[in-house]
């Protein structure tokens, strides 16, 4: 048996095609967990949001 893994990726069809099940949509290819076009505050909220989604995917 493997290990539950949340895959944070932008091009989610690729994750699906190789059989990943816990997939979390990321922001963009060069910054999956970032948003340089936003203010630092907004970027941090967005980043935490993605990680929370990933953590919650691990429990389901």
């Amino acid at each position, binding site marked *: 048996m*493997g290990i*539950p893994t949340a895959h*944070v990726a932008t091009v989610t*069809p690729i994750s699906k095609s*190789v059989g990943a*099940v816990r997939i979390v949509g990321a922001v963009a290819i*060069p910054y999956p967990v*970032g948003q*340089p076009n936003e203010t630092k505050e907004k970027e941090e909220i967005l980043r935490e949001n993605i990680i929370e989604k990933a953590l919650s995917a691990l429990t389901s």
Partner: protein
Amino acid sequence: MKVLHYLNPFFSQLGGEEKTNMAPMRIEGAVGPGRLFNSLLKEGQIVATVVCGDNYYAENMDKAREEVLTLIRKESPDIFIAGPAFNAGRYGIACGDLSHAVMRELGIPAVTGLYMENPAVDLYRRELYIVSTGRSAAGMRKDAVKMAAVTDKLLRGEEVGLPEEEGLIPMGKRVNIFCKEKAAARAVSMLIAKLKGEEIKSETPIPVYDIITPAPPVKDLSSATIALLTTGGIVPEGNPDHLPAATAKFYKKYSIEKLSRLESGQFESVHAGYDPVYANINPNRVAPLDILRIKEQKGEIKKLYPYLVTTTGNSTSVADATRMGKEIAKELLAAGVDAAIMTST
């Protein structure tokens, strides 16, 4: 007859990775591999080329698809050729998605070319004529000959032959053909050949599906050890272990035990498949150690595994990726890790 060609900026000689966010644009006539196609095609010629950055397409597929389709509609082509994209994942997805969209929306045939292991193959093979190409552009001429032959057949309205005759990736369709011998006789001949240890070829190959059983979920995050993994090529500044920028065959573990975040200047990206500027300014945008550390301090997770596990997921073969995944899982399980978060670029 009018052929419309789709390329990425690299193959249309507009630029490399720095053009990866380029919005779709139209170029008159044929460029790059399009010139080769024009020299090979007998029934038509490329009248225009549409170019779009791979990241632009992959990150906003619905928007990019509409924009490219708008440019294509203006040319009213008779057929669409995309790529070939060889083993390039994002470019392959764009070629597959657009070919599919053009067939559906414009009602014209489409031809593309992909390497068997390109992730786009599994997504689009059922609907598309995909010529099975080499891994890289080294075999461009040979692959273009096959793509041009299929294109000519479609333009003549001829029936396209069986996958092995045309060099296509099988769609998995069954076609009726007439055989001299009855099925029973063929089956017995096949059985005899098999008993003799001779090579046999099934008439209806059974598709191989790699079904992955999901690992059971974590019951309680606050008592779980979580590992941070990335395929984004994040390494200590200077890349001491020479992690490759593409086609990596190994992964590395770097201690993050004493770190609260990955500092710019101490970590960098060596991945050659995306613009590393944003990751180099703040490596946590690819490997979010900072946020996971906060989650650990707040007690939302028990512990963060003391190493960052990293590789470069750029044109990595599925076989290598599967092997590395198994090795990583084994190491993590041995270290008592309960779950992992993996980021990909």
